[in-house]
């Protein structure tokens, strides 16, 4: 019973945070709603025994990524309120909401209609229970994850190191300001530079 209460509370926090991101006109408030949503997801991870991922969720997502967002918002000084009452592109909101409802109906349809064949929903979607890397309940969650990460997936793990290096170099190259002293002037004639 306790896990039902935890799920409902965390789920409400997740959804309220998500709605806050989309509906707030101020980007700073959107970023702070994002923190609430990420914390709710971390609670859901704890509820499913994924302790390491809950920790990483808080440290990386709610910590690093949201701080990066806030830093960019403050750096660029774009924290003014966006006027949401005007709709520059006619029909964009209606179209967006209709597409969102369509996606939701598609996902929920796949979830609830797939069990009609006699199998239970989740198993019917993905096949039978996997035995490739069963969770060893006697070990802590982080040991299970490490055994899989540094066993079967060690090459992919090394590739992520390469990816992060490339992303860092790319970010430095993109925001570097060398030799472009007149970036504040928007001259059409200098487009070929």
């Amino acid at each position, binding site marked *: *019973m306790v896990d*039902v209460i935890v799920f409902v509370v965390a789920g409400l926090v*997740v*959804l309220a945070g*998500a709605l806050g*991101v*989309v509906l707030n006109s101020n980007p700073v408030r*959107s*970023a702070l709603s*994002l923190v609430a*949503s990420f914390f709710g*997801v971390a609670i*859901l991870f704890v509820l*499913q025994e*994924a302790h390491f*991922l809950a920790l990483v*969720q808080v440290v990386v*997502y709610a910590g690093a*990524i949201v701080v*990066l*967002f806030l830093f*960019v918002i403050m750096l660029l000084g*774009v924290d003014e309120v966006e006027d949401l009452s005007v709709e*520059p592109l006619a029909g964009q*909101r209606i179209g967006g*909401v209709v*597409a*969102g*409802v369509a996606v*939701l109906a598609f*996902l*929920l349809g796949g*979830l609830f209609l797939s069990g009609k064949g006699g199998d239970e929903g*989740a*198993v019917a979607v*993905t096949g039978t*229970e*996997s*035995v*490739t*890397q*069963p*969770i060893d309940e006697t070990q802590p*969650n982080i040991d*299970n*994850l490490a055994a*899989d*990460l540094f066993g079967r*997936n060690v090459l992919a793990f090394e590739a*992520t190191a390469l*990816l*992060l290096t490339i*992303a860092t170099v*790319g*970010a430095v190259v*993109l*925001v570097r300001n060398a030799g472009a002293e007149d*970036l*504040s002037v*928007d001259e059409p004639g200098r487009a070929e530079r």
Partner: protein
Amino acid sequence: MRVTETWYLTLSAVLFAIGFVGVLVRRNPLVMFMSLELMLNAVNVSFVAFANKLDDIAGQTAVFFVLVVAAAEVVVGLSIVVAVMRRRPSMTADDLRSLKG
């Protein structure tokens, strides 16, 4: 009454749809990025739910990789936004067309 994986997958579907609408409707590129993160988180929730249901740690490993790729994506995406917004402080997503060579 206990929490089954169907509950998590339903929550994940709703969260994904909210992020999807956010990407389509909002014009501030930073808020669009945040909505993108919501969609990634929705997928993470369903990954962990399946890992739990199917007794397979590979779902949690996938979430780990999604986290790393999301971090790299945010770094590159935000630097593009910074590079464009320096020129046009009141940028909307439409102004990203100025990236065209």
